[in-house]
Each structure stands twice: as C-alpha cells, then as structure tokens.
C-alpha cells in the first residue's frame, strides 16, 4: 500500500469546491479518512438536509459516522460503533476536556497492530498536542474546534489520521505574531508553521511545538504529512518535503498524517534535537 499522494488530496479538495458550487462532485476510487473529514467539514459549513452517496461507499461513510457528524439521519439506520477496531469514526471536537480521551481512542486503534511502547507513547502525545492546538488556535465562533477521524490498514501496514478545523487558518493565525509578518510576505505559511519555535501567540506564552513534533516524528517514520490552509500547502513523504500554492482555497486548516506501522518512532530523539538557547548546555539541567 502506497502513502497518500499530496496531489490526490488536492484533487479531492478541488472536488469539494465543486460540491460547494453545484451540490455534486466525483468521489475517489478508494475512500480514506481525509476524504470523510473534509467532506464533513464542507457539508457542515454549507448546511444540508440530505446526502446521497454511491452505494459502494455509503456503508463505509456510515461506519465512519458521516451522517452523524452532519446531524442528519443516516439512511443505514442506527449503528453500534466499536471504539477499538480499524476505524475511528468522524468525531467533532467541541469539548477541550475530551482531548485525552480522544487521543487515547485514536491510539487504541494502533495497539492492535503495533506493540512498540515508545511508538504508542509518541503517537498519543503527538495527538494530544495536535488536538489541543485545535482548541488553542482555531479561533472558531461556533464552538466546533475541529473534526478528526482515522483508520488503520493492517494489511497495508499504514495508518492515517485526518484533522481539520474551520478556524482562521495558518496565515491569519501566524499574522497575529508581528515578528513573523516580514517572513510571511514571502514564505509559505504552512511551511513556516512547521518550523521549531514558530507560533502565533508568543506573548500569550505559546511556543510552537505541535507541528514540529509531528513533522519530526513523521520524518523518523519515513511517513507522510500534509498540511493545507487557504491556498498554501506543505507536504512531506518519506523525508522528501515540498510546498505548493494551489489555486483553490481551503477554509481553515487540514492536517493529514499517515505512517508506516512497521517503523518505530521515539519522542526522546525528537526532543533531544530541539536546540538549546545560546549559552545553555545539557549540563545546566539534568535528572541525575
């Protein structure tokens, strides 16, 4: 099983733009969590009373709680969804008190296919940080801070988490930091957001760790990461990074992370590579 191509995500987002305009679009041959998270995001924004999907993907969409996420009745009727399995159905992020519980549920997906303790610890901590960032940075007005869903493909030895929010977007968020304004004139904001120490809220004590940790873990894993906000995107796959400006904008922010279940990751190595401030050394603070 190959990693998701950035071009496939961009083609899908273009289809969603078409959906906004003409109320219909072409679906992909193979649905993944990012398709459903973004579809739910768009349909919640536009507001709908009814949704028709091709029969071939309707059952999967129902398993992933698409109708539930839209607050409309599912044509498949009520369904009992097991929290531990191959899927984490679409979940609306409304309550900051449920961050840990959500991250644990997502991590539990991987326990059945991965028994490496450091990997599980890294995945869970990364997800807690990223979901927490939705609440800290999305600056939404409707109380919906984000949408998350995930899937594990044990046969393909891959896992994907898709996280999107309808907030102000990365460029607008980083523009709150006056020290970044000059760089933002020329830089891709999604690429900038990946840098260590880049944050929108330095005066409110924020430090900009979340996306850096996600990027560094995916680099260790030789996995895939895609970040899209507005018309800007950053992608990394098997250690190869790139940025793009696309013609179609995306309201809010979309993060897709896909990793190789057979490659362990370790947060310790990520943190040890964070730079120490000038004049400080490891000897200035230790746990001996």
């Amino acid at each position, binding site marked *: 099983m190959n990693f998701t191509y950035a071009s496939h995500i961009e083609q899908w987002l273009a289809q969603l733009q078409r959906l906004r305009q003409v109320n219909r679009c072409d679906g992909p041959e193979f649905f993944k969590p990012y398709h459903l998270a973004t579809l739910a995001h768009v349909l919640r924004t536009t507001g709908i009373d009814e949704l028709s999907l091709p029969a071939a993907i309707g059952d999967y969409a129902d398993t992933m709680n698409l109708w539930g996420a839209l607050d409309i009745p599912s044509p498949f009727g009520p369904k009992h969804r097991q929290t531990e399995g191959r899927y984490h159905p679409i979940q609306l992020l409304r309550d900051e008190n449920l*961050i840990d519980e959500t991250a644990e549920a997502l991590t539990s997906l991987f326990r059945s296919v991965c028994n490496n303790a450091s990997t599980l610890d890294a995945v869970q901590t990364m997800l807690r940080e990223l979901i927490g960032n939705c609440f800290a940075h999305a600056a939404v007005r409707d109380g919906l801070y984000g949408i998350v869903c995930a899937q594990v493909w044990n046969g393909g030895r891959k896992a994907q988490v898709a996280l999107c929010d309808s907030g102000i977007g990365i460029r607008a968020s980083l523009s709150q930091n006056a020290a970044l304004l000059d760089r933002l004139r020329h830089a891709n904001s999604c690429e900038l957001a990946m840098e260590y120490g880049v944050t929108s809220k330095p005066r409110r004590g924020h*430090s900009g760790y979340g996306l850096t940790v996600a990027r560094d873990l995916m680099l260790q894993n030789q996995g895939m990461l895609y970040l899209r906000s507005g018309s800007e995107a950053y992608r990394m796959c098997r250690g190869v990074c790139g940025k793009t400006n696309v013609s179609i904008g995306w309201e809010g922010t979309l993060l897709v992370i896909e990793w190789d279940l057979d490659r362990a990751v370790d947060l310790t190595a990520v943190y040890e590579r964070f730079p120490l*401030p000038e004049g*400080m050394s490891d000897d200035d*603070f230790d*746990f001996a």
Partner: protein
Amino acid sequence: MTTSTSHEPDRGARETVIGAEALHVDIADIASNVTTRPVGAAARRQLLALLEQHHVIRIDFRDRSLTPSFADECLGQLAARLGLGAFKQRVQLKNLTESSKPLVKHVVLTRCSAAAA
C-alpha cells in the same frame, strides 16, 4: 525507549531533603490532564502557592507523558519565574517518563534563558 517502571507510590509523604522538608505533590491533584496550556498554567499557579509555604516540593508525574504545551506552561514558566538555580534547588521532579525528560530540560532552559535576557 520505554517508560520508567520505578514508580514511587509515596503520595502524601514528606521527606527531609538537605535540611528542608519536601512537600510531595501528586500531579493528578493539581492537574486534570498533562496536555493543555490552560491546565498547565493552573497547575503552575498552584505550585507557586505551595512554594510560598514550603521550601522544597517534589512533583510526582506518575509516569504520564507530558505534552510540550503542558511542560512549557507548567514547568518551563515555573522555572522562569523562580530562576534556574532556585528551580533546581526547590523543585524535584519524580516519575517523569523517559521521553518527557529531554522535553522538560528543553522548556526549563529555554524559558530561563528568555527570562534572563
């Protein structure tokens, strides 16, 4: 890397540390999670209040992995407030996971450096 297995269940205990009584603080008693900045900030305020009454405190993290945001808000900014020397003398950190140790070192040194600048 695995998490530490040397958990020390000494909740409520006090011990003598270089002539000062260390107050044992269970992180679960001051923080509902070790994830978000708001919870980290509230925990930091409680720790500062405890440090007004006790010379040394000993925080037991119960082998829970801290997120960077929580570590920075709670411990990094606590260290910046106290100063690095006082933080090392007065705040003991117990049962941190192995992955949290380099994170805590980073946030403490980074915040102290910024505060001193």
